[in-house]
């Protein structure tokens, strides 16, 4: 029964797609040296969460409440602010250390 529902329900497809995007973003953020790629990975993870919001809104019993859409819109706004501040921080770090690699920024390392 569970297997059949998983294969037939389109919600499962979107949730699996979202899980894959989240895992890809996490892998990139954890493995790459460039701070810009780390930030891109974080953006991908935020987008995966947004896709979940929209998918649950589409397949919910009360879509007229618009909560999923509203959360996604506000999440996009917050992510835009986060991207602007994050990239400004990377530029400031590059100017200070002459490098945008995470491994070179180790002043606080014990």
């Amino acid at each position, binding site marked *: 029964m569970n297997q059949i529902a998983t294969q037939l329900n389109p919600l499962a497809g979107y949730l699996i797609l979202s899980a894959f995007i989240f895992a890809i973003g996490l892998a990139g953020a954890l493995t790459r040296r460039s701070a810009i*790629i780390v930030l891109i990975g974080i*953006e*991908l993870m935020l987008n995966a969460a947004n*896709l979940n919001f929209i998918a649950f809104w589409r397949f919910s019993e009360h879509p007229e409440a618009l909560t999923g859409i509203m959360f996604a*819109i506000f999440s996009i706004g917050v992510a835009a602010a986060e991207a602007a501040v994050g*990239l400004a921080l990377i530029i400031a770090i590059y100017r200070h250390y002459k490098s945008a690699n995470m491994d070179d920024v180790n002043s606080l390392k014990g």
Partner: protein
Amino acid sequence: MNIFFAIIAAVTIAAAVAAMSLRNLVHCALALAVAFAGLAAAYLELGAQFVGFTQILVYVGAVAILVVFAILLTRGSETSPHSVLSAGWLSGILVAVAVLAVLVYAIAKSFVLQNAVPAQPTVTVKQIGEALMTKFVLPLEVVGLLLTAALIGAVIIALKEEGKK
């Protein structure tokens, strides 16, 4: 599970993998724009037109361009001779695979998949605007304040450090 969703999912996952694995950072930014566009197509497929076009405007239009600017300002476009992977990359891959396995297991066992699929909801921009101006007016103001503060803060952080000329 129709053919459109299969195409969208394949393109989005391929672009996300490319954005995370290519050596040249400019190529990564371009693959990122493709991944964002694929997600916007997924939103359109789900019936959320407003969010889909917002995604294209904000992510493909603004965030991808910001990333390209940051890459060019930090000379990231020059491919480095060293390894692009950080020191603990193996444990990072293991953590990501473990997270994916847990998520897929939770989705496969979830009870929400037993629910019947409802009809496609129709939502107009007028409804979204009215909701933003009535029920969600306080979060809207807070997001406006947050964006203003974040953009001023970004400019101040990226300004030249004093005394270093």
